[in-house]
């Protein structure tokens, strides 16, 4: 056979093979959305999703809001990180929100959204999220999807086991992942075992206003406190924290903190702590920590420094705190909807241990202790154990519940979700995730009454799942239908930052209360301008205050003269619109901060510090109307020594 003939034959076989392969797909081509899975996540144009999904932004420091089942991204709520798009952390009003005892901090690492609860069920009022790096907790108000409060946590380092809430959000907790000297001091790291302590903070939430305050801190042995969840039902007065590094190693922890066969879940009776604190137990010590609050009347943040915190030690809390041994270096600690089962996610363990709250109570009553650590009894493992899930996969991390007697545990190492039964602790199903799932979320899946329709996996790596974008790839979420015996993968969607924990609730719980605008008559901003006729410019020394209004499609004033090089020019822009979805933006040439994005009825302030004489332009950055391009103006900047008088125009 000649060479060309051979190649022709190969080509013919290849083409024929392709045709046969194409024909062999049995009718139901999934590529065109004909598959069952596609229709389950398809939300037609103009239709709305069933659930809100609040997903942590991880190292973006923010929180994202998705719709389920579509996986469509609606919004990124700036929390701990500056967001130039929204002026968050750049406008004069929002800068105080990012103040800490270390000064202005423009970034954090946000891990765990947790919704406020009433009677053990998400109530749709607030979502909390932790700042991991510079320890803080934030409260986001779900009427306007804005961060309304940020509270710093003293004596903490790596605020990871946070911000999990009790059944009526009486408290949200904040446990330290790094133990540190308390109070912090200049000592050798070699003194870890002797001097380092872990703190577990309980932040009280005022039911009426939502305002947070640091109620007390528990001073614990110097372990790494990793995650937490509150009890419910019979166990509702208890809070459970997982901890690792019970070896108390301070270096090469990946080896040195992985030696003990079992670490702990610490069970804390927070009601007993509350009573002890009310009695005046413990000591009130000096501590400096920031407390920043937002007002949607003044559209401004207030930054204050707190100076005291009550510290309780195990000695103050006899009978209120117990260690439950848990294999091995547990990460997640999750409580089933009945409150009876406490599931440890021993990330190096080969089983998933399930503790029983009622057995734990009996063990406490019968003093089934194996030893004490710093006055905290260590219960016997077998005395608390309800059962172990055998062969669940590798690297169990977190568990959520569907409310129908099933648990779903994320398996980081074997990259899958394992569904198992709370009746017999037997594995029912496994579904692969792409790849390396961290957290997972079922709507209401950590509450008393889950809406067990979907489980969403939040994956750390995606490798080949999407079109490549260079070395840096997106993280992802995957949504599974869990209404049947087997989990069914429906769709993948990319996430912002790195998704850790997430919360989901039915849309109607939040949508009905969502604000459309801020009533201008309720605007109490000190620099508000409620009508173009009230627009003006004032000079106070080197500070120039411009009282400006924005209304489709012009700023008032839009010609300003008399500013001098070196002035601090404050543009106080009030968006006078009272119509839904008509924000205005504001940007001025040479501003060293960002833009403003001003919602209807809101006032925001941009500081501008021009250095060179000339004429500078400003404009609306949000395409507000047909004549948006005309929504612009000029500021004349004169030399410091000039005598140009202040001058501005009105409508």
């Amino acid at each position: 056979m000649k060479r060309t003939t051979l190649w022709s034959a190969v080509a013919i076989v290849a083409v024929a093979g392709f045709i046969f392969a194409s024909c062999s797909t049995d009718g139901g081509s999934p590529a065109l959305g004909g598959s069952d899975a596609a229709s389950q996540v398809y939300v037609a144009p103009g239709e709305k999703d069933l659930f809100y999904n609040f997903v942590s932004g991880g190292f973006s420091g923010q929180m994202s809001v998705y719709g389920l089942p579509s996986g469509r991204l609606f919004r990124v709520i700036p929390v701990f990180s500056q967001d130039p798009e929204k002026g968050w952390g750049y406008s004069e009003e929002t800068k105080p929100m990012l103040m800490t005892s270390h000064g202005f901090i423009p970034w954090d690492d946000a891990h765990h959204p947790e919704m406020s609860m009433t009677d053990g069920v998400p109530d749709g009022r607030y979502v909390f999220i932790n700042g991991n790096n510079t320890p803080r907790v934030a409260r986001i108000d779900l009427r306007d999807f804005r961060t309304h409060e940020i509270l710093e946590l003293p004596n903490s380092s790596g605020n990871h086991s946070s911000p999990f809430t009790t059944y009526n959000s009486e408290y949200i907790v904040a446990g330290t992942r790094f133990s540190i000297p308390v109070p912090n001091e200049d000592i050798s790291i070699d003194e870890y075992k002797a001097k380092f302590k872990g703190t577990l903070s309980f932040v009280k939430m005022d039911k009426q206003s939502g305002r947070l305050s640091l109620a007390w801190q528990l001073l614990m042995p110097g372990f790494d406190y990793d995650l937490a969840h509150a009890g419910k039902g019979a166990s509702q007065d208890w809070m459970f924290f997982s901890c690792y590094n019970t070896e108390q190693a301070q270096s090469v922890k990946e080896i040195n903190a992985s030696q003990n066969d079992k670490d702990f879940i610490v069970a804390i009776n927070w009601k007993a702590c509350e009573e002890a604190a009310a009695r005046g137990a413990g000591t009130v010590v000096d501590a400096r920590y920031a407390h920043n609050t937002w007002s949607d009347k003044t559209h401004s943040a207030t930054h204050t420094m707190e100076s005291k915190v009550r510290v309780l030690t195990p000695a103050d809390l006899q009978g209120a705190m117990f260690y439950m041994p848990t294999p091995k270096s547990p990460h997640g600690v999750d409580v089933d909807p009945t409150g009876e089962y406490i599931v440890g996610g021993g990330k190096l363990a080969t089983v998933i241990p399930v503790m029983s709250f009622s057995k734990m109570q009996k063990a406490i009553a019968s003093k089934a202790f194996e030893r004490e650590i710093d006055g905290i009894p260590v219960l016997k493992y077998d005395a608390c154990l309800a059962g172990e899930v055998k062969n669940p996969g590798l690297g169990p991390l977190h568990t959520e519940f569907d409310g129908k007697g099933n648990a779903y545990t994320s398996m980081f190492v074997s990259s899958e979700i394992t569904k198992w039964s709370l009746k017999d602790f037997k594995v029912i199903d496994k579904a692969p995730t792409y790849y390396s799932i961290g957290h997972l979320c079922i709507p209401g899946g950590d509450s008393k009454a889950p809406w067990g329709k979907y489980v969403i996996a939040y994956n750390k790596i995606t490798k080949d799942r999407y079109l490549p974008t260079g070395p840096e790839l997106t993280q992802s979420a995957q949504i599974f239908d869990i209404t049947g015996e087997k989990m069914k993968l429906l769709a993948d969607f990319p996430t912002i930052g790195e998704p850790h924990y997430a919360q989901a609730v039915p849309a109607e719980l939040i949508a009905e209360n969502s604000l459309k605008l801020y009533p201008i008559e309720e605007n109490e901003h000190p620099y508000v301008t409620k009508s173009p006729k009230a627009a003006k410019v004032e000079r106070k020394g080197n500070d120039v205050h411009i009282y400006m209004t924005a209304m489709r499609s012009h700023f008032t004033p839009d010609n300003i003269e008399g500013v001098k090089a070196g002035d601090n020019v404050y543009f106080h822009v009030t968006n006078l619109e009272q119509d839904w979805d008509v924000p205005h933006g504001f940007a001025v040439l040479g501003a060293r901060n960002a833009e403003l994005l001003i919602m209807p009825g809101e006032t925001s302030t941009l500081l501008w510090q021009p250095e060179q004489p000339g004429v500078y332009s400003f404009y609306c950055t949000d395409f507000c109307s047909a004549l948006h391009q005309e929504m612009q103006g000029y500021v004349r900047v004169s030399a410091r020594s000039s005598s140009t008088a202040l001058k501005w125009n009105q409508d």
Partner: protein
Amino acid sequence: MSRLNQALVALGALCLIALYFLPMWKITLEAPQYPKGNELAIMIHVNDVRGARKNDLQNLNGLNHYIGMKKIEPDSIPELQYMPVIVAGMIVLGLVAAISRKRWLVLAWLVVIIAVGALGMYDFYLWEYDYGHDLDPRAAIKIEGMAYQPPLIGSQQLLNFTAHSFPAIGFYFIILGWLLGAWAWWSSRKNGATS
């Protein structure tokens, strides 16, 4: 005129009290950006012109400045000052007709309502014409030959907006009152008589 008919005339007159509480007419404006459920609407009362929702009138005035339409400012519409007095007069006339039990007075009342109603509609038309045609020559959007007069009754496309103009619940109270009076007047005629 029977006691029943007398009562019907009085009731008919009292129906007009509804005009002090309920709108007579509604103009609804829909556009791609103001779809059903989020449309703008203004309600015309005997003594006020106001948005169906809190900010509707302000938002409508805001949009209308692009085409140079005058702002709708209730305080500058004199009819809203004297219309309540005219309605009061009609109520009194109806009640007087009822008390007097005189058929010709009832008839007069019925005629006055129609006459006032017709004049009112004509006046409404003139206002619509004025708003639709008396445009600021410096307006940003100017289209040769285009006027923005909403329909007296019915629906019409005005640039990106569809304007719907229809009676509102108060108007139906006028009709109800009038029909009650008319029924009383008709049924109280003498057998075989025509007057």
